[in-house]
């Protein structure tokens, strides 16, 4: 998570207006879901990977790491789509042609869809996305919640890490039963700290005139129409090519 955040804040496209990234990536995601996956999927996956690595300059390794988690779910789940169980003469497992096709479609479609989200998270700081959500009229309470969670995740991750190091230094993880005890202690300690932190943050915010609304300045970035149009043209091209390939395949 920290790695994703780091790339989001340091990549070459960080200063682009978030809509320039969200609209093309979002449209590609929708295309992936409606077009036949075998033709459009690889195109989407390829173009998103290209945009992330060659365009925004995020290391390919970071992209692979992000894609690895959903890929693991696919590996675990997809084989069951490809086989079918028959009870006709005893219990039997068979590869079914329809199942194989379904498994392939699912894999390609899922990876392509995830690549759109990976592009977005790796190139756009969460603050930009939050600002965009705010403009789209998401309720303020929800946005403040996202904002605070985003900020506090790092505070608590840091504390959990230090706490674990301190426990390890006193051999807290030397055996399984000790580990359970240590993890429990750490969790209850973090819980307590979270409550204290909340109380102190309330004091800090009140000192700056908090009256129930976390208002902050928005970003001043201007939308670049040429960039947005280029992105959308790419989306249209991929859509057309996907459709054309699909006809060729069938």
């Amino acid at each position, binding site marked *: 998570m920290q790695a994703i*955040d780091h790339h989001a*804040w340091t990549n070459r496209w960080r200063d682009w207006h978030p809509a320039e990234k969200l609209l093309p990536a979002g449209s590609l995601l929708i295309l992936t879901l409606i077009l036949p996956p075998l033709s459009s999927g690889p195109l989407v996956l390829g173009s998103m990977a290209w945009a992330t690595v060659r365009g925004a300059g995020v290391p390919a390794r970071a992209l692979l790491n992000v894609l690895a988690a959903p890929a693991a779910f696919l590996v675990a789940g997809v084989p069951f789509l490809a086989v079918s169980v028959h009870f006709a003469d005893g219990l039997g497992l068979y590869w079914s042609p329809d199942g194989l096709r379904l498994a392939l479609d699912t894999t390609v479609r899922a990876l392509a869809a995830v690549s759109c989200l990976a592009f977005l998270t790796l190139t756009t*700081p*969460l*603050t930009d996305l*939050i600002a965009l959500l705010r403009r789209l009229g998401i309720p303020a309470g929800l946005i403040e919640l996202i*904002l*605070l969670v*985003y*900020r506090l995740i*790092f*505070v608590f991750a840091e504390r959990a890490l230090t706490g674990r190091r301190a426990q390890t230094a006193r051999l807290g993880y030397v055996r399984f039963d000790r580990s359970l005890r240590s993890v429990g202690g750490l969790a209850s300690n973090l819980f307590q700290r979270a409550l204290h*932190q909340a109380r*102190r*943050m309330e*004091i*800090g*915010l*009140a*000192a*700056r*005139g*908090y*009256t129930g609304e*976390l*208002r*902050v*300045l928005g970003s001043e970035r201007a939308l670049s129409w040429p960039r947005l149009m280029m992105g959308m043209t790419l989306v249209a091209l991929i859509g057309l090519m996907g459709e054309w390939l699909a006809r060729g395949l069938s």
Partner: protein
Amino acid sequence: MTVSLLAILGLEYRYPGQIVALRDLNLTIERGRKLALLGANGSGKTTLLLHLNGTFQPTGGAALLDGQPARYDRRSLNHWRRRVGLVLQEPDDQLFAATVEQDVSFGPLNLGLSEAETRTRVREALEALRIAPLAVRATHTLSFGQKKRVAIAGVLAMRPELLVLDEPTAGLDAHGVTHLLSALQRLHDAGTTLVFSTHDAELAYSWADQVAVLHEGTVLAQGETTAVLENRDLLSRARLKPPLLLELAQALGVQQNGADPPSRSREVLLALLRARLRGADLQIPDR
């Protein structure tokens, strides 16, 4: 007689559960001063500071703003906190927004300022602390010293008359301390009254023009820095050590008069010491 900016009279504060944290406490904050609240750990410094902007309401005694008893309804508190800015010791307790610029903009927007005016205030506050290049950085990527400065900028952007800082130098390295103190000095020169808590008598001696010594929830003495810190009995009662620079000045027989005597600077004292050693024809042998 001038009316002090903020005064605490006969303050008592019990935490829920009846533990008495502060008792019989008197403190006067005069305009344009640099007041150090000096006390050992657990002497009640932070609890006292939280009374200075109305976060805690005394269970006995009173806080006086411009000579008038403070009120604790929502409107009065808002007004109070416009005038008195509070910076907590731990910056992570205070910074909530994802970027520096956003966090600093929080206070000015709460004052009801326009977006344009807020941007100006944010820029000014960041420049005052010499951290303008950090404006678009993510809060969680900052170092401790940087976070500390951002936390101060967030309060500064509201342009308080009185800036209250809880252990401002705690956790900072020597360079960070110098940097922070010179920023605070600039604010003070521009007319901001400063109150800060510390357990460091050296810091109080070299930097404050008034000191109040806290011990077990009460102020033992408040007065001009040198006068208070010369009182060895007082300091040992409060479990504090006299500042080395002051002892050095005394050993050298330097006069301690005036609000900001030259004897407070370590350069001056060291030069004096060297001259004295030469005069007495004492030589520290080279190894």
